[in-house]
């Protein structure tokens, strides 16, 4: 796959941007912050109608048979407008786990619903601060799951979870329908992410993979989600850089636009470098899907995307001064999203180690 977008991909970029911008309502997003377990339902409906949930799922399962590149383009726009219902990423993660496992029955059962958006999918790998524990506390025995998974993205609404569990010390990857599974909504500073703790109690689940294979698939899924997220983060970073630029061009102090002061303009130029490095690494990683160096490329994309989004959040507020720190200005929506996205797919320490182990050749 190429680093250069072809005509079809450019059309997806243009069209998704037009649609995402047309329905972007920052006031509504602000109101949602003060609710728990709610998300931008209008965006999600639109995403499913547009086929964004189907983009990277094979055609034989009701998808459009495209790739991480196209999904990344859509995620980029969602990031620009903050419109991400969390399921775009987590639903793809669930689908990807089913595809990686090669279990035809489960694929037939779940993929068409994930592609159409009727099923909201998620992955439940992490426990505490570990995104991918080798011996999870959630147990799987006799086809049943027991235990709790905290911080599950979109967990409040998900109908399907891919769970990393332990069968007597052996890691297993399983698929579980979440009907009737108890969940505790987690109040976070970015409530539309709909994080929940899932409580499994003799929950029936189907095994996808076991042992090292389970961990390998989980890592590939996490990497794929990280690449989608990196595009979303780049979109958010770019929007913030542009917002800082526009404000610096219009706000006047000391007799000139504040963008005329190097302390301000250089800060924004530095954001440009971070945005472009993030974009470049994201595109590169998406183009490496399926190759031996995919996880390595995903790790690099993740690190630059987190740095770009956190830094542009910080600096965009700073360029705005007091007004940037207000509730109404809404830049905090990006601050919140930047921090959420930086943790959801595994923190930077985790990914730094993933990357360094591969640089050192300790892991192929």
């Amino acid at each position, binding site marked *: 796959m*190429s*680093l*250069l977008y072809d005509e079809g991909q450019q059309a997806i970029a243009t069209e998704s941007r037009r649609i995402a911008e047309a329905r972007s309502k920052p006031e509504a997003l602000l109101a949602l912050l003060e609710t728990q377990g709610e998300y931008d339902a209008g965006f999600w409906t639109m995403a499913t109608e547009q086929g964004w949930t189907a983009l990277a799922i094979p055609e034989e399962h009701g998808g459009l048979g495209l790739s991480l590149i196209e999904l990344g383009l859509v995620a980029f726009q969602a990031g620009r407008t903050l419109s991400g219902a969390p399921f775009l990423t987590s639903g793809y993660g669930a689908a990807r786990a089913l595809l990686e496992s090669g279990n035809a029955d489960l694929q037939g059962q779940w993929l068409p619903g994930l592609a159409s958006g009727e099923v909201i999918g998620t992955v439940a790998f992490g426990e505490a601060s570990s995104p991918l524990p080798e011996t999870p506390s959630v147990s799987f025995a006799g086809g049943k799951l027991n235990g709790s998974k905290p911080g599950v993205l979109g967990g409040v609404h998900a109908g399907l979870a891919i769970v990393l569990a332990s069968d007597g010390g052996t890691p297993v990857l399983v698929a579980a329908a979440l009907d009737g599974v108890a969940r505790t909504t987690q109040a976070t500073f970015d409530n539309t992410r709909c994080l929940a703790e899932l409580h499994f109690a003799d929950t029936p689940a189907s095994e996808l993979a076991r042992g090292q294979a389970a961990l390998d698939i989980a890592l590939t899924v996490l990497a794929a989600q990280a690449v989608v997220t990196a595009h979303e983060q780049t979109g958010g970073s770019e929007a913030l*850089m542009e917002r800082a*630029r526009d404000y*610096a*061009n219009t706000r006047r102090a000391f007799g*000139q*636009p504040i*963008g*005329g002061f*190097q302390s301000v*303009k*250089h800060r*924004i*130029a*530095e954001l*440009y*470098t971070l945005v*472009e*490095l*993030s*974009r*470049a*690494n994201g*595109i*590169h990683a998406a183009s490496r899907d399926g190759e031996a160096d995919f996880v390595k*490329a995903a*790790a*690099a*994309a993740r*690190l*630059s995307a987190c740095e770009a989004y956190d830094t542009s959040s910080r600096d965009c507020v700073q360029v705005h001064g007091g007004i940037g720190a207000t509730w109404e200005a809404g830049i905090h929506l990006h601050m919140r999203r930047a921090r959420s996205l930086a943790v959801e797919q595994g923190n930077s*320490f985790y*990914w*730094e*180690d993933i*990357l*360094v182990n591969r*640089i*050192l050749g300790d892991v192929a």
Partner: protein
Amino acid sequence: MSDLETYRQKAAAWLESVAPRYNAKVRYGLSETENLALGRAYLKERFDAGFAGINWPVEFGGQGLGHLEKVAFEAEELKHGMPTVFFGISLGMPVPVLMKFCQDHAFVRERVLKALKGEEIWCQLFSEPAAGSDLAGLRLRAEQDGNGWKLNGQKLWTSWAHYADYGVIVARTDPTVQKHKGLTYFWVNMKAPGVTVRPVRLAAGDSHVNEVFFDDVRVEDTQRMSPVGGGFGVAMATLMIERYVATDSGGFGPKLDHFVEVARKAVINGKPAIEDGRIRQQLARNYAMRSGLESITARAMLMMQAGMEPGPEGSLNKLVSVRSRQKLSELAIDLMGTAGLTFDEHASHSDDWAMSWISAPTGRIAGGADEMLLNTIAEKILGLPQDYRPDKGVAFNQIPA
């Protein structure tokens, strides 16, 4: 396989065949004079092999190929550390500008051929003691002298002027108009009476830059390469030619593998440095930065191949890579402990951390200081306002000192 890939492989094979006589390893410890002699011999061989002036017009002795082939060759050549440093400026800017702006084609053809073969070297006389980033503020005067011109003043930071046969120069021909409107562009003979070249020793101990004095140096009007007062435009065009050069995501410092080697050997408080989070974080961050720059470059190449104009993000390579190299070099020296303090004047900045570190400041200043690059990004790419400029719209001789 694409035509470009075929070309790259052909170039790589040829370079491989001559490398044992010219590469950085076999030249280790040679004097500058010996290196220059080898450099001239290498350029002659490169010319004969058909890898000189790759994207230059055939009528001037070039190969008539594209920027892509040129960059592909350069990227392969970089791997060997060939003795091309003396000719980098010469073939990079002055000679291409000569082809573009000098009307005397027979003269140009002769110069181009000699420059491509390493027989002649051109330098670029732009910066002055009081005009670096603010190039248009230069003071060296060109006054009419009969049917020609007379140059008086001083240039500074002129790379390889001590070996140069010719140079291109920007001079002030009219101090009574706005600063960038009173400049004119010439070529000069560096061996002409009144030209004095004095090397300036840099922090790393080397002296590849010079101060050049002009005392009543006579220049013919046929040596003028711009309209009178139109020199700034040609100077800008000179700097734009630099767009199509091989970049290095490591800022021309040591490779990241080299850092890994250092970290694998080092110990911090009895524990392997390579297991230390501080070191691993820097390794990961530097890798991500380099891979981002490499992806930007790869994308630009693909765009050029597809006949598109690459995006402006290509311009951030030098800014990002060189300052990172500076910090990583500090870290590598730290890791090596007192062994890291060892200094070898023959070492290269591309494989020795101490040399990389001590020569990094030059990289952050030459060819556009970090601050000017940030200004360019802010103003040209993002559309932010220019700095406050008290010299704007003011005649050069009225600018407050």
